[in-house]
């Protein structure tokens, strides 16, 4: 790697103060530090040695934790396509075709998100003279995983640019943002282009093929919601009897848990989200308190709904909330974003619990939004500083009381 180092060292003066390309210093620096960890040493006073971790390594850990969801999402995209168009029956039939279709649909979305966001990051870094934020490594992967595979690429690009600029850069970049960037991108799409991200038609890629007779593209959430409105059968029965044309058991609990269902690319599999959670918790990168309390909050609120069950949705067994829609993915990867989450340890419990509560409340009671996790996370992002404010205040109060007794 010596020649590469020599090459970079040779170019470096161009970008340093007084060099021709001085204005592009941070773009150069980003590339340089990506390839080589810098050689600068600790200062004269203070800690003479530093921990082996850095922000790049932490961020890449999150990306790795998302890979099970990504791979599963790709295959499931192909699987749902062939299932809907009558091209396959068994899960592992036409493995190659399904993988290929998934890759062809999902990879461009990932590339567009990374490119669009990367360009915005680089422009901001150069203009505002700050280092390029590693946080985008995570955001660029999160955005593709929370949109349907049918989303037009220009919308992905637009949403990414919007989110990076409005949710992050205007606040000063990674570490300063109030809202989770990827959730903001999704909310942007949801409100700006609802036709491409809601309803029953967008979750399964059909291409130019005709779906099989009697096919419905509805997600489990809308099936359950309709069951609640109609009240002719229980929610679980409605799930079991839905879309039997695609083979029985599409929306049975186990299948919902594993994730062979229509939905946004990365969100369908609760199992894969839990694999991700395991990685994040084992590496200590995400807070287990938020993940645990998030799931607990959803269960508790689902249970409370059961107590007042005035319709079939409210009577839905609470564990179904865990496996439908994007709750698991949202709690594991979005709610745990350390910058937009509560930052005190006590606050994390409250924050996670309320996200779980709110998700289920929005799902069950609000006809406009079949999925609640997106708004719950964004809402609690806004309230996290308030939660922290009271936790910090309690800390100050303890100190004050100690002084006066």
């Amino acid at each position, binding site marked *: 790697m010596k020649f590469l180092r020599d090459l970079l060292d040779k170019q470096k003066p161009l970008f340093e103060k007084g060099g021709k390309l001085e204005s592009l210093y941070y773009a150069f620096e980003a590339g340089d530090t990506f390839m080589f960890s810098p050689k600068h040493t600790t200062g*004269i006073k203070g800690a003479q040695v*530093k921990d*082996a*971790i850095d*922000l790049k390594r932490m961020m*890449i850990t999150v990306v790795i934790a998302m890979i099970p969801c990504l791979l599963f999402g790709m295959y499931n995209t192909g699987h749902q396509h062939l299932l809907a168009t009558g091209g396959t029956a068994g899960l592992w039939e036409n493995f190659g075709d399904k993988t290929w279709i998934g890759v062809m649909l999902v990879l461009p979305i990932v590339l567009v998100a990374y490119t669009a966001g990367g360009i915005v990051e680089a422009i901001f870094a150069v203009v505002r003279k700050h280092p390029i934020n*590693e946080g985008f490594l995570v955001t660029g992967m999160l955005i593709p995983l929370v949109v349907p595979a049918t989303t037009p690429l220009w919308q992905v690009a637009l949403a990414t640019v919007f989110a990076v600029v409005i949710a992050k850069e205007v606040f000063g970049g990674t*570490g300063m943002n109030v809202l989770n960037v990827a959730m903001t991108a999704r909310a942007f799409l949801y409100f700006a282009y609802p036709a491409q991200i809601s309803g029953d038609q967008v979750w399964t890629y059909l291409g130019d093929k005709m779906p099989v007779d009697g096919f419905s593209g509805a997600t489990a959430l809308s099936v359950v919601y309709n069951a609640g409105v109609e009240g002719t059968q229980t929610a679980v029965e409605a799930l079991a009897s839905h879309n039997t044309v695609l083979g029985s058991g599409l929306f049975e609990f186990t299948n919902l848990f594993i994730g062979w269902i229509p939905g946004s690319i990365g969100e369908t599999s609760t199992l894969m989200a839990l694999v991700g959670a395991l990685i994040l918790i084992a590496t200590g990168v995400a807070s287990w308190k938020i993940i645990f309390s998030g799931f607990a909050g959803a269960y508790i609120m689902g249970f409370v709904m059961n107590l007042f069950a005035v319709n079939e949705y409210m009577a839905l067994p609470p564990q179904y909330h865990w496996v439908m829609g994007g709750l698991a993915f949202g709690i594991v990867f979005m709610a745990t974003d350390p910058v937009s989450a509560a930052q005190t340890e006590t606050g994390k419990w409250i924050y996670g619990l309320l996200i779980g509560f709110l998700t289920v409340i929005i799902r069950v009671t609000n006809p406009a939004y079949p999925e609640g996790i997106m708004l719950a996370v964004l809402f609690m992002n806004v309230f996290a500083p308030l939660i922290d404010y009271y936790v910090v205040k309690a800390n100050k109060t303890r100190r004050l009381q100690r002084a006066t007794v």
Partner: protein
Amino acid sequence: MGRFSKAHSSKTDMSKIVKLKKGFDINMVGKAKQELADFAPAQTFAIKPTDFIGLQRPKVLVNEGDTVKAGTPILIDKALDQVIYAAPVSGKVVEIKRGDRRKLLEVKILADATIIHEQFAQVDIASLDRDALAAKLAASGTWPNIIQRPFGIVANPADTPKSIFISAFDTHPLAPDYAFALQGQEKYLQAGIEALAKLTSGKVHLNVDGSKAVPAVFADLKGAQVNKFSGPHPAGNVGVQIHHLDPINKGEIAWTVTPYGVVQIGKFVLEGIYDASKVIAVTGSELTKAAYVKTYSGASISTFVKGNLNSGHVRVVSGNVLTGEKISLEGFLGFYHNQITVIPEGDYYEFMGWAKPTTRLSYHRALGLLSFLTPNKEFVLDSNGRGEERAFVQTGVFESVTPMDILPVYLLKAIMAEDFDEIEELGIYEIVEEDLALCEFVDVSKHPVQELVRKGIELIQYS
């Protein structure tokens, strides 16, 4: 919540037992063997005004070429002129080194072969009142060992602290083992404690390592409340101990002294001399022989290090690697330092260094960080900065290495924002740099935490 969840304290008659869970031990290669090495003795010694935090306007009392005895006043702080900073050895003042704008950097003394001491009268503690005792100690050269909390500055003899705290063990990386370094000093420790007890309106606390039997040198001391602390570093930090024994509130003053300082005070009491001799630990992975050596405060470290190196490109640290100061191979031991540490200099690039699996020491377990698998291993740590400074991202980590009811990130952010009320309310009075040094080590975003702490202290101190 979280207030005492990680610390259980219980009272047995007066003394306290505190078990701390939060923290992190940095195990390093290069521990000093428990023997006195026969390194060539140091020839020159320096008093560096910069060692004494809060020393504002130093005035030198000697000229180049003067001969001095151990205990001869070398400089004073014009802002606190009753406190003498004295020569650690007898000899000749060979250089008074100044930097930019004539800032005083070092007063160097070439030592005599046999040290001659200024002879003061012995101190009869019982017959003196508090102020008279304080005045005697302030003029003795031993006083700068007494540090005031809040702020971590040299104490003012006119103040009466609510208590005085002595941490009888050091949990920093490769720190000297007091049981070895201070052996045989019992009577001086005892005399020092008696003198200190007279200076406070409250108690003298002697805090020992609760995970071991109390070392002989501390076992039979009287006149102090003995408390036991156990747990990972920073359990040995006196600031952490104060927090759990008798926390400092706004407007209160406590003092701290290390056992090395207590010994010096005790010697002055019993023998009427300023004896700056001490046994220090010479440590670090880059030394062929890591051992203890007997020398004096401010010693030139070159004779301990040169010819004792097993590699060429090293960083010499006066003190330990968490709180110490980089010095040159010809540098001098800091006044408050009882060890030197020699580690590899880390000025190298590493290809894809942020992604490669590594066995380097980390408190974290993120992707590819494998050191958590070998918790008992001794590590070689170099001075590489390990990445660039970033905004705070990760949360909860600082709290997990700070065994105090303090929220370090909020405090540091308040300091960055220069929000005086917040700084005060979030607990600046309870900490000095060393108490948050581990945060600086484990920080993912590589903030200069200790520098920020000092900035916060100065904002409050001079406001």
